[in-house]
């Protein structure tokens, strides 16, 4: 369970992505014409809250985590991640947190205060039902998984690199994941505290955010965005990494300005913690704070610009192959530039007074998250699919996916910039007729449906591919540069029969250029120690799930029982030594030892 799930867990993460997408389409159907009554106002708020929460916490991040899990150990020449047990625990807590959040649809109403859950709207006075409780507890449980994932990847990358794989020889994707993990480590605990405080307010009548008893509603905004802004970079940095890999491979060229790329990534991560108040320009922090945060935010454009130029110059003079993955990566670049430019526009506080909370913002962050992150994930999935599953995705359907998704995306969101400038606020259930919003909203809805078609095409591609034989070559794109392309597709459970010796940046490419067939092993063939699969992470997550329900409905016995299940599992884990098992060299023969 610990090792195997890293290639098969895609399914539930994709299901969350589909749920979030379905919610988006329902939102767009409601808005296709003025004064529409397709869903009720309450339902609409639930949809927009769950769309945001699901897409960010349950779809985008876990999809990234799935890619990281599959690829990072391969790229650094490791047998596994540093903590397989935590890896599995992180997955199950994420799954049960997401499940808990979505159970709310069937128990009298999903959370409806937006994914930002601003108080007092999210407090018990104005959200008296259990909706926001599900948000608070579901995200708390899912957040544990993310935090554990962050620690795991950092430890893996620091401690488990193959001989010769120095930090400045690491592939760009590994670098971005490293920085992202650091951001997770320092950003998520703030959310943990915020959610705990909101939970105390809601379940135990605490007064953190209750102005009547001295609480402060602005405090929630600060805590939320201190987490929330780094979260945006947590999402986008790995996408930068994917794009760097895909662009290099399909241009048959080394990444232009590798060290400046690494430096830019660090700078973006660092600045990401200094800019949270740009989400709060209209909250009333005063001119000094607004000016400082404006300037700090604008600064981020510099390292981002460096990245964009480096990608373009990587392609310049290359030998570019237009596969689906490559198309998504190339489509990503102009799309992300647009999101970046509107980002700088929003960074100017006086202008933001006009843009803030309008459809302009909606357009901006969808350009960054869908146009950036989701396109990056699509590129990564098409690129690494053969390595993960041993089968090549169908290129024709892939190109159909790209064209429909790309056109649909720009149709949906480009017009939203203008809706915002015309004065359409975000998160509105409906709009009046005669304001000039009708035509643009209709275009936007048609675009959303096109994106839906693109996603369905991708699903069809997966199904068709699953029926084909597993015959992908080790290096199916023929221009693989990094270690993952040195081993068989799909990667065996021990990844490398013999740990490879890394002799330079782009380890495999270097061997190819030196005329070698593959990597030089750094160790003799020996028995490989593997951790045993464990059921405990699953049971622990079930315990948390039960505890969440217990506390939410004020049944403290059930709540305590859930916690006891969790702690009991921790005790068992501590007391029972995992001796694992060994794969002997003769078992490795015939499976193609090549390392």
């Amino acid at each position: 369970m610990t090792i195997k799930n890293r290639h098969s867990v895609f399914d539930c993460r994709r299901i969350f992505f589909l749920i979030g997408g379905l919610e988006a389409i329902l939102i767009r159907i409601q808005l296709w014409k003025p004064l529409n009554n397709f869903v009720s106002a309450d339902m609409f708020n639930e949809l927009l809250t769950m769309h945001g929460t699901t897409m960010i916490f349950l779809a985008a991040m876990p999809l990234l985590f799935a890619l990281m899990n599959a690829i990072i150990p391969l790229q650094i020449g490791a047998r596994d991640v540093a903590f397989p047990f935590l890896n599995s625990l992180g997955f199950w807590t994420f799954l049960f947190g997401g499940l808990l959040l979505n159970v709310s649809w069937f128990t009298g109403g999903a959370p409806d205060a937006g994914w930002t859950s601003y108080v007092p709207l999210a407090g018990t006075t104005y959200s008296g039902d259990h909706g926001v409780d599900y948000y608070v507890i579901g995200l708390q449980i899912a957040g544990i998984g993310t935090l554990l994932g962050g620690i795991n990847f950092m430890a893996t990358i620091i401690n488990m690199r193959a001989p010769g794989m120095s930090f400045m020889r690491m592939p760009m994707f590994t670098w971005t994941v490293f920085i992202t993990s650091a951001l997770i480590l320092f950003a998520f605990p703030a959310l943990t505290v915020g959610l705990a405080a909101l939970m105390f307010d809601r379940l135990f009548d605490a007064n953190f955010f209750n102005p009547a008893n001295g609480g402060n509603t602005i405090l929630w905004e600060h805590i939320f965005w201190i987490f929330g802004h780094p979260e945006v970079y947590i999402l986008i940095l790995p996408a930068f990494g994917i794009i760097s890999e895909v662009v290099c491979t399909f241009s048959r060229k080394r990444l232009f300005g590798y060290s400046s790329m690494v430096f830019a990534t660090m700078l973006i991560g660092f600045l990401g913690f200094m800019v949270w108040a740009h989400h709060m320009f209209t909250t009333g922090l005063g001119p000094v704070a607004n000016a400082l945060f404006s300037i700090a935010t604008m600064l981020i454009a510099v390292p981002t610009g460096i990245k964009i130029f480096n990608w373009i110059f990587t392609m310049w003079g290359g030998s570019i192959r237009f596969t689906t993955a490559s198309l998504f990566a190339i489509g990503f670049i102009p799309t992300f530039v647009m999101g970046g430019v509107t980002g700088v526009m929003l960074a100017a506080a006086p202008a933001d007074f006009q843009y803030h909370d309008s459809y302009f913002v909606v357009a901006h962050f969808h350009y960054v998250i869908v146009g950036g992150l989701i396109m990056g994930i699509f590129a990564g999935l098409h690129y690494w699919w053969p390595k993960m599953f041993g089968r090549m995705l169908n290129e024709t359907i892939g190109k159909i996916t790209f064209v429909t998704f790309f056109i649909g995306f720009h149709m949906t969101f480009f017009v939203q910039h203008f809706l915002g400038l015309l004065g359409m606020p975000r998160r509105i259930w409906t709009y009046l007729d005669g304001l000039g919003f009708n035509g643009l909203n209709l275009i936007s809805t048609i675009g959303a449906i096109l994106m839906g078609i693109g996603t369905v095409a991708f699903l069809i591609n997966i199904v068709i591919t699953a029926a084909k034989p597993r015959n992908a070559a080790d290096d199916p794109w023929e221009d693989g540069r990094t270690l993952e392309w040195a081993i068989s597709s799909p990667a065996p459970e021990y990844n490398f029969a013999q740990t490879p010796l890394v002799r330079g940046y782009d380890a495999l490419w270097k061997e190819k250029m030196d005329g070698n067939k593959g990597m030089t092993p750094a160790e003799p063939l020996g028995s490989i120690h593997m951790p045993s699969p464990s059921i405990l992470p699953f049971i622990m997550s079930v315990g948390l799930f039960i505890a969440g329900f217990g506390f939410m409905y004020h049944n403290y016995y059930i709540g305590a029982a859930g916690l006891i299940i969790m702690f009991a599992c921790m005790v068992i884990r501590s007391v029972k030594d995992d001796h694992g098992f060994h794969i002997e060299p003769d078992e490795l023969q015939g499976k193609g030892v090549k390392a």
Partner: protein
Amino acid sequence: MKFRRRRGDNTIPVQVEGNHKLEIVWTVIPIILLIILGVPTVQSVFGLSKDYSKDPDAVQVIVTSHQYWWEFEYPQFGIKTAQEMVIPTNAKIAIETKSGDVKHSFWIPALAGKIDSNAGANVNTMYFEAPKPGVYLGKCAELCGPSHALMDFKVKAVDEASFDRWIAALKEPVELPADPAVREAFVSKCLSCHAVGDQGGMIYPNLTGIGSRETVGGILVNTDDAKYANEGTVYENLKRWIEDPDKIKPGNGMGKVALTEQELDGIAKYLSELKLDY
């Protein structure tokens, strides 16, 4: 495409590591651009934060947001109104925002940027000016509940003379409905929360002069020439609203009031004739 790979092309392009000159150029140029952008940004941040709340020449308006309606208090004139903010043209309007319940955001897209109205003690200020007379649409920009989308208001910019007339008209006493049955219903069922003139409660929107407002409830537009589903005459709109407020603005605090057909008709008629002359 210059760099497209042809089928069977096995040449290996030059592996460029980077180019320091280029990299410095595309780091420095954006920095210069940002400085050019940053200076006016900082200037206007401080410019927009000017405090006119003590300025006697500015018109002071205290804006209090409530779940799905806006209250406008003019402390210099001792008046309160709702849903329609009347302002003189070419004068500084100094706004102070606070909230009666959850967080909202005060926004008149055509006139100024927005400012949040926070719950609790965090009061915000802003100022703006309307150079031309006219009616402007105002919006709530912060998610505040089911009817967040419908929390509109109007800003009516008029010349100084009619602004003064409006102030005076608003202060005049208001007669109650003539028909005793309607009056009885109006006093017991409406004035418990709403006010007309100097009578009634102040919990919910002040109804003085509602007959001459641009809208009922912020979204039912009053016009004799109805084009859209949300338009009608004042009388029709009032009747529509009072009949079932929840249908117009889901989740608002008014709820259905038990009225007979005559009472409903009479109250709607009375309110539609409650006009201000300015």
